[in-house]
């Protein structure tokens, strides 16, 4: 009897260990047994056709989302956003570079503006549901390679094919590496853009992220970024900056963002000694959870880019070849194709008030090149009830703009060809081709302008013992040195009261000292 119980426990432990990695739930279907997935498949859409035989609504569901459209009208600001048209301070823009950039589109074959967004078979199910070995190499417009192909054409470099049937038979719920394939690698490499998202999270330690800890909770992205009908919760361009509500109960009907910390933890999560009178919980009226609980970003050993200067791109070696320079850690600090970089690890965030509204400088917006141009602005009035102090990564760019029209420019860089900067290092051609693809006018005159881009810091949640300590803000020159709209004991004080108070204390000391001296002197005189 006792033996049987031990065996049952052991079996349970094995079962739990076996299912931990991905989403913690085993599927009721073994896709390797499905005839429709027997293959072989000669293209991505062929796989999708098979998927849709059972998952009849999947494509239509995801086609409503930004993962498919790369297009988004921000209801709060009315701005037309989405990766399709937005300009950033890293690789700048998608248009004219689609065959390269669309490796990160969840579709097949978006190589220019003529892509058919209504074709359900073009949805790439495998991008998010593969369990390994699936790749969408740069240059193939989001298509996987099923036949050995030379890329760039004539380069003598070949991309090896992958077996789509094998990959399709092994599909499962989304895992960290699925999301990470694109969300870690934005800006052209691991950890480049966000700072709080990089491949170190795939095998996160407790120290790096308490939720993703591979030996602990081992969350997948979707444990917080809960999806319904393929719509994934959470967005950096329409953020939940404050969520002053208790934790959601399982099954509770709610419009709240399940990816916000408060969805699980509530907005008063600290269990404190009664005598402390809810001191820590009072902080949640002014601070985002992330402000204390993510003391630094890029903590997993992968560096993030802090600055990128495109104006230095295009220098060639004596032989006329592009080259790279690396720092002592092996990080590329110069690349002829891209310019100069500054990397950062264990970076202390900057802090600012943020109410979730973000506006972007878009391609047709007029800029002021005499100052650093904000690619995006996080809004929020100091002390406003709907705003919180948030940690952000402040990224500095230097990128091309039209000196006559005073607009940012999107260069054609990544697609092999005469106009592409990476292949001919000719800015006027690259900028003209980019302008042509975006439909924006280009005067032909260009220069480079300093820009800034903000990234909210919200991943890489440290263990509570490693949270930002009180004195890091409650002090002169602390983390929140420049933050207005909040009185911070230890940082703020009335200078006139201090002067008056210390003067009074000094006067008292001086008074009693003189009194004491007088007593001693008169006493001595009497003794005489």
């Amino acid at each position, binding site marked *: 009897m006792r033996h049987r119980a031990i065996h049952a426990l052991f079996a349970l432990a094995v079962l739990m260990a076996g299912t931990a990695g991905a989403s913690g739930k085993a599927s009721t279907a073994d896709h390797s047994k499905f005839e429709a997935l027997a293959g072989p498949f000669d293209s991505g859409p062929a796989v999708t056709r098979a998927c849709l035989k059972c998952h009849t609504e999947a494509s239509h569901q995801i086609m409503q989302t930004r993962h498919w459209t790369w297009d988004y009208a921000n209801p709060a600001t009315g701005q037309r956003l989405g990766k399709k048209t937005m300009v950033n301070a890293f690789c700048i823009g998608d248009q004219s570079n689609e065959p390269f950039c669309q490796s990160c589109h969840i579709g097949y074959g978006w190589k220019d503006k003529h892509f058919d967004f209504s074709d359900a078979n073009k949805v790439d199910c495998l991008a998010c549901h593969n369990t390994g070995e699936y790749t969408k190499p740069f240059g193939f417009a989001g298509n996987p390679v099923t036949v050995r192909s030379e890329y760039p054409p004539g380069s003598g470099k070949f991309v090896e094919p992958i077996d789509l049937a094998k990959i399709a038979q092994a599909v499962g719920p989304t895992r960290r590496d699925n999301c990470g394939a694109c969300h870690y690698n934005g800006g052209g490499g691991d950890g480049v853009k966000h700072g709080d998202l990089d491949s170190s999270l795939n095998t996160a330690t407790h120290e790096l992220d308490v939720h993703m800890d591979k030996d602990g909770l081992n969350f997948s992205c979707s444990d917080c970024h809960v999806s319904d009908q393929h719509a994934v919760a959470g967005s950096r361009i329409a953020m939940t900056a404050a969520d002053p509500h208790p934790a959601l109960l399982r099954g509770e009907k709610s419009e709240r963002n399940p990816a916000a910390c408060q969805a699980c933890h509530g907005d008063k999560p600290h269990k404190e000694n009664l005598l402390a009178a809810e001191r820590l*919980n009072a902080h949640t009226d002014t601070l985002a959870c992330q402000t204390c609980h993510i003391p630094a970003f890029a903590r997993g050993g992968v560096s993030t880019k802090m600055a990128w200067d495109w104006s230095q791109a295009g220098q060639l070696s004596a032989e006329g070849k592009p080259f790279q320079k690396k720092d002592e850690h092996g990080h590329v600090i110069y690349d002829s194709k891209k310019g100069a970089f500054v990397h950062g690890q264990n970076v202390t965030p900057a802090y600012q008030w943020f109410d979730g509204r973000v506006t972007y400088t878009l391609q047709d917006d007029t800029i002021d090149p005499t100052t650093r141009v904000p690619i995006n602005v996080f809004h929020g009035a100091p002390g406003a009830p709907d705003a919180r102090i948030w940690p952000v990564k402040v990224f500095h760019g230097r990128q091309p703009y039209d000196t006559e029209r005073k607009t940012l420019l999107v260069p054609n860089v990544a697609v092999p060809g005469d106009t592409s900067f990476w292949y001919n290092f000719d800015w006027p051609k690259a900028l003209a081709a980019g302008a042509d693809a975006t439909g924006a006018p280009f005067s032909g005159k260009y220069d480079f302008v300093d820009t800034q881009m903000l990234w909210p810091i919200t991943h890489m949640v440290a263990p509570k013992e490693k949270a930002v300590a009180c004195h890091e803000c409650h002090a002169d020159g602390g983390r929140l040195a420049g933050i207005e709209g909040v009185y911070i004991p*230890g940082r703020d004080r009335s200078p006139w009261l201090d002067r008056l108070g210390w003067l009074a*204390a000094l006067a008292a000391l001086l008074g009693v000292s003189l009194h004491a001296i007088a007593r001693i002197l008169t006493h001595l005189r009497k003794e005489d």
Partner: protein
Amino acid sequence: MSHTTPMTRIYVFKRYERFWHWSQAVLVILMLVTGFEIHGSYHNLGFERAVRLHTLSAWTLLALWAFTIFWQFTTGEWRQYIPTASKLVAMARYYMFGIFVGAPHPYHKTALKKHNPLQRLAYLVLLALVSPIIWGSGLLYLFYAYWGGLGLDRWLSLEQVATVHTAGAFMMLVFVIAHVYLTTTGHTVFAHIKAMITGWDEVEEDLRATPEKTH
């Protein structure tokens, strides 16, 4: 400081009173030290520990006061703090002039009237002005998390409360400086401190026989 007058010992400070005084002294000094660190005047224990210690001291002092108020009323000792104008000027004159020339102390301490008129006035100011400033602002400060629920956030800002609290702290600091110095003005430098430790004070004998009437 007349050396000719025979001295006798009287029991002035009872055991609870001495316990109250010294634990209060420790707590007040602790709160001054930690409070000014929280204020940002210097770095010593670290902000977090200073806050924790400051809060703990506050709660301890509140508990001590709960007992002390009970003690004051049950023993009737509270009457010791009723202010009097009689000899107030004489006391001030003594500290300003008389003390230097060895003039006799104008007030004669008894077990029933242990505080001189200046002391009574100082303690009254402490009790009626400084304490309410410190405790009023301090408790508001401590219970900041509950302002929203009580609707106080419409009327108060943390800055105002912190400023008032700091002002109270400076007043307390000035009091402590003066108070500590005045302990040295007994018939010997350490006589008052000794009395507060042992409870026994030495007073001039003949005057004890004819206790003075203040009213």
